[in-house]
């Protein structure tokens, strides 16, 4: 459905101020309350956080002062391997998560997108959406019961004498990745299903009828055509994984230190708000870079309709 001409509903001449937005003052009222909330409670706080990061780090001080602007907090971050290594680790873990989510998510998305029976397709969507909507802590709880040293897997394997000592499934990078993929997979799947459904079946049929086998059809037609979904989903998964606090804490048991943990630690344990703000800004920058790339790709492929 194309977007219909602007101002079709409002014949009144718009005020000069709102020339930028056709439809006049009355349509602006629609978006005003949400904009107000977003500006007052999202944009301003984020700018304030950014500003605080440029004050020298001092324990117990929250407010911003114009008089002493400095890069001290950022220097501190990059001078101490503890902090910047955590950011590198965050990015690495998130990249691995995005790749695994794609490898696991693509076949499922393809399977659901090609489902012809509407009842089945609806059921699959309910399952995927439920798994996305389910409380993150509950899902990690389930994984912990399953993968802990005395968890279900190790317990059963030990009881059956298949192993002598518990397998290290959790409290390491492996556990964190399993948790992050669990967290982000539904977003990957939702990004992919729509794109795969949108591929004209006659293109695949044409390739098949011209003699390409199934693998070749997939590699030369289906997969390249689903690239927008692949890129969008991967960057979305990356952004979700890189900002996650609860997953590395629960699945890594404080043995895999990532940047969101440093932010919380600086606030709750050290009380160094300004340094926490600086770390938050750097993490924010990494996510924003991912979002920016994501937005560029979707703009390019979907033409900015959505």
């Amino acid at each position, binding site marked *: 459905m194309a977007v219909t001409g602007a101002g079709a509903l409002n014949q009144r001449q718009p005020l000069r101020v709102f020339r930028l937005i056709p439809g006049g003052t009355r349509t602006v009222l629609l978006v005003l309350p949400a904009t107000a909330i977003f500006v007052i409670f999202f944009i301003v706080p984020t700018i304030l956080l950014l500003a605080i990061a440029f004050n020298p780090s001092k324990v117990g001080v929250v407010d911003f002062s114009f008089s002493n602007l400095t890069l001290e907090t950022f220097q501190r971050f990059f001078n101490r391997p503890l902090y910047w290594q955590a950011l590198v680790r965050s990015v690495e873990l998130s990249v691995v998560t995005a790749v695994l989510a794609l490898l696991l998510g693509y076949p499922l998305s393809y399977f659901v997108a090609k489902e012809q029976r509407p009842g089945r397709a609806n059921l699959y969507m309910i399952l995927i959406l439920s798994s996305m909507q389910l409380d993150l802590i*509950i*899902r990690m709880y*389930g994984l912990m019961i399953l993968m802990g040293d005395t968890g279900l897997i190790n317990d059963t394997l030990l009881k059956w004498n298949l192993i002598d000592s518990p397998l290290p499934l959790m409290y390491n990078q492996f556990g964190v990745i399993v948790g992050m993929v669990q967290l982000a997979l539904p977003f990957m799947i939702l990004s992919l299903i729509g794109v795969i459904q*949108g591929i004209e079946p006659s293109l695949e049929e044409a390739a098949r009828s011209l003699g390409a086998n199934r693998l070749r059809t997939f590699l030369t037609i289906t997969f390249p055509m689903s690239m927008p979904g692949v890129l969008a989903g991967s960057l979305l998964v990356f952004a979700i994984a890189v*900002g996650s606090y609860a997953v590395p804490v629960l699945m890594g048991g404080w043995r895999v230190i990532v940047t969101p943990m440093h932010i*919380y630690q600086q606030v709750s344990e050290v009380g160094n708000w300004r340094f926490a703000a600086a770390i*938050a800004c750097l993490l924010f920058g990494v996510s924003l870079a991912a979002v920016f790339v994501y937005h560029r790709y979707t703009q390019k492929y979907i033409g900015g309709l959505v």
Partner: protein
Amino acid sequence: MSVITKDAPPFNPPTSASPRRNDKDPHPVPLLFRIIAVITFAYLLIPAVIVVAAGLNSGTYLTFPPEGISLKWVRGFLTSDTFLPAYLFSLRLAFVTMIISTVLGTMTSIFLTRVAFRGRGVARAFFLAPLLLPGVVIGLALYTYYLNMPWLHLSRTFWGMMLGHVLVTMPFVIGTVSASLYGFDLSLEEAARSLGSGPLRAFFTVTLPNIKSGISAGSLFAFIVSFGQFDLSLMLSTPNHTPLPFAMYNSLRYQFEPTSAAAGTFAILLVVVSMLLTSRMTNFSKFGGMKFS
């Protein structure tokens, strides 16, 4: 004459006898894809199944095969002085968040889908941004802001936390409601307008019933996302304002307590029941195209 009748059968092949493609799929999904799809489904759903099993298990630790079914952890949850209040607090918070997010998000979606202006893509990205930014960062930004603006009286309050939840749930409402608005034929509303009804009446009698499914799905997502929100609540919760995920997280950090599994079972029940209720109104298979960009 006889030639035609002879030639006719080949032009009427048996495929046309079964016009539905159900029994013979022209594009069977490759076996490898089917196998991985099953594994991925299992991976997505097993954690929830395990939490329910632990909540209904008779022993303290879940074993395989299970020892037996018991309701003692459920009883423990219903008499708990940490989990039950947290559950009720989360319900209250999610309900208020849902109402505000749904109303404002629907209004914003109408604006974003109907009014063409330069920078609409940017405006859309602006409203969807909280989904992609780390919850810890948004939480820290709000906490710092509340502390710096004491006259707002929002620091460590229910309303302060609720505003954060509105920020992170609105993208879901905008995503689903916009999807249904793109599918709505605007000429229906124009017809109502040309027959003399005012803009509000045209909206409430024609458009709203048509996008009802998108709105109900969006409000469901807002409710559930708020109910399960953790990273944001981490920064904003206080001992007397503890949402359920935070209470569960606290108990998980120190000891394994099946009571929290029972609490989790009730949360899962809430998701499943509300998903099923909404699926009666909404065709979820349409949401494959839900976009978060």
